[in-house]
């Protein structure tokens, strides 16, 4: 009986991916003579190989074995660490990731890439000076087998219970050479007496190989104490057939390679295993969607402490409540204050659990920059700062791709070729720095390069060419840089396969906005440019402005508010029909009364002296007319979709201090609604006028 291993597959995968990361970062920092790093890379590869072998991911094992052999040579100092080797190893790490991902999803992989890489690995190994014969099973297999061993293997009945399976041993032996075996079923009891967990068989094995006796013994190492093992060597490989025949005559032997009993057990095992494997696969797939978080023990401990305090406060309050008298009111107030404090701290602690250091998003960049610098032939150094800055897990997952894009752009467009840099009196090696820090309730991620900066005129001309602006438009620098985020905009004179197709920057901006953040560009010609990404710390809590419309309270996300003001009658303009615009300095802001959009009864419907909250979304400013401005507070976002469905103009709901529900406004959605309504009204109007015409 084999243990159900499939339950451990998810943790194996998790560990393997971690191992791959260790290998990758180690390889990027690898310098000759740095034994500690090679050891850690080797260890990571070795444990991946071991794990993959246990779970039967043979392609992973085989491939990793090659990598390990190369690493082994480096570790023993038999091979110099060259740049080419490191490149091949980096490529191999990619292949291993590919293979493990394929094993996880149970899908096919790009076998061509694997094959070509493993071929290159083999060639590199062949070039190597010294070779370790025993670590090359392929070679052993191809060579003519000049030795023959007879192995008498009589395991104890309890062998299977210790998690060993003779089949694994035999498979391992086949790797050494040609194996033929015969099973002895003489000890097999009657079917009714069989304990399915016991092993009743023993085997006679004949192995033609050129491996040494020690190699064979090594295979049996794990079962040594639980079996009777005799290994005898016969020199001539071809004279064994009669000898074997003689031997088999002595014992009642069934010459099937798989004895029936074992086969039957195996069959059962196999079918359940398959079912379980499938289940495991489905499970692990589902799990990869849900994802898991590793949380530091200190965070959990602080949570437990807080819960302890909360329990104490609760018991104090309930004792007070069971025998309450007005004279104890002071005690009650202090108890409630304590409760407030506890809840606040508990909330903060729970939110901290979702926070991960941004190094999770940053750690892929050394490799990316390394690859890009080879591809572009530019020498680039990557400086990472503020890796410990913590960020919500969901935000982190979604910010990864936009950041990759920005870094890629920095290498491709930002950093100039070496000649240009030297001519400009700069260091030959370009620098790209990534920085993350907190600012207020936001996190700021900066991607800066010391390259040529953005050519303002080039951007301007390109925008004019594309018809985005007028030739005589006077734009501030930041307005010009904002043009970079227009769809289809690229100033790269030639399109490379890294970037320059003009897709991307608009997607970057959209993704960042979808997270409730924004992006800014700063650039000095000849000195480099900086992209600043501003993100909210978490998606589950939002800073909001509470407003009142009629009897309802709504929440406007603070991040989209430009300003709040009281309408000055002088600045109201009715234009083109019935559209009301408000002059806000240079801008004309359309006014959007919430009560009209949501079909509510409002207290104030007059525009004069009404309160206006000017909000901005997608570059469009609108003024939301509200009855009253209430407090500003943090609110916890709750989904309306769970029990209801998405509502136009509302991004979610929250529960206020008094227990009532308040809707959180979705500003882009509301603007869209207003546009749709306007279009609808127009079609109605045209229809009406058409009707008049007909009658």
């Amino acid at each position, binding site marked *: 009986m084999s243990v159900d291993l499939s339950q451990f597959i998810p943790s194996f995968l998790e560990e393997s991916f971690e191992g791959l990361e260790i290998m990758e970062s180690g390889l990027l920092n690898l310098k000759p003579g740095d034994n500690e790093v090679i050891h850690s890379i080797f260890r990571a590869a070795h444990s991946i190989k071991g794990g993959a072998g246990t779970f039967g991911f043979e392609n992973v094992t085989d491939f990793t074995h090659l990598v390990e052999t190369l690493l082994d040579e480096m570790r023993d100092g038999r091979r110099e660490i060259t740049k080419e080797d490191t490149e091949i190893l980096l490529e191999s790490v990619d292949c291993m990731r590919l293979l493990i991902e394929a094993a996880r999803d149970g899908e096919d992989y790009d076998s061509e890439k694997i094959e070509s890489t493993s071929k290159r690995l083999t060639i590199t190994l062949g070039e190597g000076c010294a070779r370790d014969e025993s670590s090359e099973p392929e070679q052993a297999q191809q060579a003519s087998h000049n030795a023959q061993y007879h192995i008498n293997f009589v395991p104890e009945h309890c062998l299977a219970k210790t998690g060993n399976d003779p089949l694994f041993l035999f498979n391992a032996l086949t790797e050494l050479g040609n194996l033929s075996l015969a099973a002895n079923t003489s000890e097999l009891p009657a079917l009714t007496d069989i304990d399915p967990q016991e092993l009743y068989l023993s085997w006679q094995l004949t192995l033609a190989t050129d491996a040494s006796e020690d190699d064979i013994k090594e295979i049996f190492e794990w079962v040594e104490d639980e079996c009777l093992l005799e290994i005898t060597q016969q020199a001539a490989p071809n004279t064994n057939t009669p000898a074997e025949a003689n031997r088999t005559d002595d014992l009642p032997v069934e010459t099937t390679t798989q004895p029936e009993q074992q086969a039957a057990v195996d069959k059962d095992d196999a079918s359940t295993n398959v079912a379980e494997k499938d289940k495991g696969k489905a499970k692990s797939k589902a799990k990869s969607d849900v994802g898991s978080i590793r949380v530091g023990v200190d965070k959990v401990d602080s949570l437990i402490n807080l819960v302890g305090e909360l329990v104490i406060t609760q018991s104090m309050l309930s004792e007070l409540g069971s025998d309450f008298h007005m004279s104890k009111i002071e005690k009650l107030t202090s108890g409630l204050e304590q409760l407030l404090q506890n809840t606040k701290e508990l909330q903060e602690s729970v939110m901290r659990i979702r926070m991960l250091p941004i190094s999770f998003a940053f750690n892929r960049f050394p490799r990316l920059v390394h690859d890009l610098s080879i591809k572009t032939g530019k020498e680039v150094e990557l400086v990472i700062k503020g890796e410990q800055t913590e960020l919500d897990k969901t935000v982190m997952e979604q910010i990864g791709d936009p950041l990759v894009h920005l870094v890629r752009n920095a290498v491709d467009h930002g950093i100039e070729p070496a000649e240009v840099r030297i001519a400009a009196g700069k260091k030959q090696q370009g620098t790209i720095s990534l920085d993350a820090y907190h600012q207020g309730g936001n996190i700021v991620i900066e991607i800066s390069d010391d390259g040529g900066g953005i050519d303002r005129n080039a951007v301007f001309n390109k925008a004019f060419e594309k018809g985005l602006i007028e030739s005589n438009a006077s734009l501030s620098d930041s307005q010009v840089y904002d043009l970079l985020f227009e769809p289809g905009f690229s100033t790269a004179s030639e399109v490379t396969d890294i970037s320059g197709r003009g897709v991307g920057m608009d997607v970057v901006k959209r993704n960042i906005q979808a997270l409730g953040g924004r992006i800014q560009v700063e650039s000095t010609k000849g000195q480099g440019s900086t992209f600043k990404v501003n993100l909210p710390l978490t998606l589950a809590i939002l800073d909001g402005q509470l407003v009142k419309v009629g009897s309802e309270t709504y929440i406007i996300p603070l991040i989209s508010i430009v300003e709040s003001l009281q309408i000055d009658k002088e600045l109201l303009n009715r234009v083109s029909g019935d559209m009301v615009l408000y002059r806000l300095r240079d801008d004309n802001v359309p006014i959007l009364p919430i009560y009209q959009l949501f079909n509510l009864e409002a207290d104030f419907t007059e525009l004069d002296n009404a309160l206006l909250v000017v909000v901005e979304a997608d570059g469009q400013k609108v003024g939301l007319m509200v009855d009253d401005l209430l407090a500003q507070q943090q609110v916890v976002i709750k989904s*309306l979709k769970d029990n209801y469905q998405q509502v136009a103009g509302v991004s979610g*709901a929250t529960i206020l201090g008094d227990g009532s*529900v308040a809707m959180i406004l979705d500003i882009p959605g509301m603007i869209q609604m207003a546009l749709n309504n306007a279009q609808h009204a127009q079609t109605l109007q045209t229809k009406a006028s058409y009707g008049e015409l007909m009658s």
Partner: protein
Amino acid sequence: MNLQAMAHEIPVEGEQTLEGIDFITSGDQYLTFMLSNEQYAVDILCVEEIRSWEKPTIIPNSPSHIKGVINMRGVIVPIVDLRLKFNLGAAAYSETTVVIVLTYQGEQSTRTIGFVVDAVSDVLNVEECEIKPAPAFGSCVPQQYIDGLINAEAKVVTLLDVGNLQKIEKNQIHS
């Protein structure tokens, strides 16, 4: 102390369980409620809780029978007025007006929705064979919501299909 005597005092399994129950049930249980003088029933296992009517938060631009959402222990629960949904006359909110919160476990998701009714009346014990199919004559309540009819003494109770109540709910909002 005599061990034998002690042993007698310990009730045998089964004896004890009967003690606390003052009625013995047979068949399934249904919660009945009033909608403008008619009796309706739902499977009692779907009933999450019965709460008094409180004014919910309005959902913008929702149909008239969707009264809004309330906070039920941190969960946002929509409130549907069944009298308006079934076109059963005026929907007045009096002291007996209650909200029956039903949770239905669908194939993909679990939904919790509160339904406003005139009053909660009783719990019926009904064997499955006692549920009769509803005649397909025109009524205000669309056929898909009706699971059958139950005779309760002199009155006839309409049994509602909770699954459809919540499912159709979703489609209707979409239209």
